[in-house]
C-alpha cells in the first residue's frame, strides 16, 4: 500500500514542477494569455491515450500479470450542473482538487481554505447522493413487492 503513497508523492511533485499549482498559470490559461497548462493537459491526454490504445489493442497485462482494467466513467444526471460548478470554482480558486493538496504541501497556506471547502462539500454531497439513492431503491422495492 505504500506504493500508493509513492505514486501520490510523484504526482504531487510532477504537478508542482509542471506549474499546475501556480494560481497565475490557471488564471492566465482562462484569460487566454498563456496556454502553458493547456499544453501540459493536452500532452498528458495524448500520451496516455496512445498507451490506452495499445492496452486495448494488445490486451496488455500489469506487472503482476493481471489484465489491465480500463473503466471509462459513465454519464451521470448531475454531470452538466456539476461540470459547470466545477469549472467556475476551478477558475476562481486557481486550482483543482489535486493541485490544491500539492499547493498546501508547497507551503501555500491559503490553500488550506480550498482543501477544507472541497473536503466538506465532497463529504456532504456524497452523503446526500447516497441518501437520495437509498430512497430511490427503497421506493422502487416497495412498489415491486406486493403489500
Amino acid at each position: 500500500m505504500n506504493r500508493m503513497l509513492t505514486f501520490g508523492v510523484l504526482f504531487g511533485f510532477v504537478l508542482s514542477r509542471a506549474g499546475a499549482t501556480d494560481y497565475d498559470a490557471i488564471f492566465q490559461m482562462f484569460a487566454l494569455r498563456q496556454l502553458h497548462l493547456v499544453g501540459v493537459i493536452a500532452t498528458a491526454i495524448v500520451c496516455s491515450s496512445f498507451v490506452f490504445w495499445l492496452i486495448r489493442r494488445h490486451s496488455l497485462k500489469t506487472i503482476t500479470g493481471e489484465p489491465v482494467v480500463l473503466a471509462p466513467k459513465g454519464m451521470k444526471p448531475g454531470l452538466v450542473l456539476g461540470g459547470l460548478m466545477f469549472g467556475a470554482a476551478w477558475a476562481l480558486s486557481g486550482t483543482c482538487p489535486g493541485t490544491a493538496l500539492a499547493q498546501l504541501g508547497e507551503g501555500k497556506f491559503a490553500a488550506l481554505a480550498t482543501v477544507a471547502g472541497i473536503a466538506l462539500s465532497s463529504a456532504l454531497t456524497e452523503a446526500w447522493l447516497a441518501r437520495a439513492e437509498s430512497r430511490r431503491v427503497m421506493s422502487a422495492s416497495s412498489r415491486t413487492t406486493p403489500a
Partner: protein
Amino acid sequence: MLLGLFLALLVGLALGLFGGGGSILAVPILTYVVGVPPKTALAASLLIVGITSAVALATRVKSGLIELRAGLGFSLAAMLGAYAGGHLSRFVPETGLLFGFDVVMSFTALAMLRGRSTSKRSSGLSARGLFKVNIALYGLGVGLVSGMVGAGGGFLIVPALVLIGRMPMQRAVATSLLVITLQSGAGFLGHYADVDVPWAIVLPMALCAALGSVLGSKLLGRVNPQSLQRGFAWFVLATAVVMIVHQAELLLATSAWYDAVFVIRWPWWLGGLAIALVVLGLLFTTNTQLGVSTGYGEVCRLGFDSSARRSWRPRFLLGIALGGLLASIAAGHAPSWAMGSLDTLVSTPASKLSLLFGSGLLMGTGARLAGGCTSGHGIVGMALGSRASILATSLFMLAGLLTTQALLHYGGL
C-alpha cells in the same frame, strides 16, 4: 556528410515506396547527423522532399494512378495551410516546434498501424459530394501542421486519401506525391524569408534522395505493402522516441541540470509527459485508474468508515501533499500566504480565504455531481475517449473561461 547522403537515399526510398515520410526522416537527419540548426533543417527538408517527390511523381505520370482532381483540391487547401503554418512557426519556440513534430510522428505511426487491409477497398471517390468538403478541411489541417513543423505530411495524406477517399493504397501513394510536391514548395516559400538555405548540403542530399525515390518506385511492385507499412510505422515511432530523449538532453545542456529539474518550471511537453507517466505507472503497477476528487470524501469518512480506511485514495492524497512539499523544498521556495494575482483581486486576507473556501465548496459539490475532476475526467477520462468525460471536461473549460472572462470585464483585473 557521407552518412547524411546515404540516409538521404533511404529518405527517397521511403518517399517512393510510401508516398510520405520524407520530412519525418529528413529533419532528424539534417539536425542530428548533418548538424543543421532546427529551423534551417525544417526549411531544407521541405526543399529536399519537394524535389524528391517531384522526381518520384514524374516516374508515375504514365501509370494513370494519379487522381488529379482530388490531389489538386487537397493540395490547394494544404498549400494555404502550409503557407500560414510556415509563417506561424516564427512565433513558436524551437523546442516546442520539434516536440510538435514528435507528436505528429507518433500519430502518423499510429494511423499507419491502425490502417486495415486497404487494398481490398474499391475507388468510390467521385460519387461522394461530402468528400470534397472533407478533403478541403483535412487538406487545410494537414497543410497547417506540415508548414509549421516542416513535415511534408505524406503520412497524413495517405491515410486521409485511403480512409476518407477510399482510395486503393497504390493510387493514394501516387496522389500523395503530387500533394507533397506542391505542398513542400509552398511550405518552403513560407520559411524561405527567415532562413539561409545551406545549398551545399541541400543539393547533394536532394540528388541522392531523388535517386532513392526512383529505386523505391521500382521496388513498390515487388514488396507486400502491408508488412512494409507496419514495419515502417514502428520505425517512425522509434525515431520519435529517440528525438524526445535527445531534446531532453538538450534541455539539460542549456541550463544546470539541477535548475532544469528542480527550479525552473518544466516546459509544457515535459510536464504533460510526466503526468502521463504517473497515470500509466499507477495503472501498470497497481491496476488503478488515477483520480483525485473521490478521495476527499473518503478522507472525511476515515473516522467511521472501514472501507474508506482500506482505500488507496487517502494515502494517494497524502502523497500529493508530500510531493508538493518536496518540490517546494528542492526549489528553495519559502512558505507564504500569497496566492498570485488573487491577492490583487481581493483586498483582505479574510476575503481571500473565504473566496477560496467558497470555491472549494463549489468545487467539491461539482466534482461529486459530475463524477470526477481534472484528473479523473480531464486527463484519464479524455484519454479513454469516454463521452461523459469529454462532456465534463468541455464544461469545466467553458465555465472556467466564462468565469475568468467575467472577472476580467467586471472585476477590473
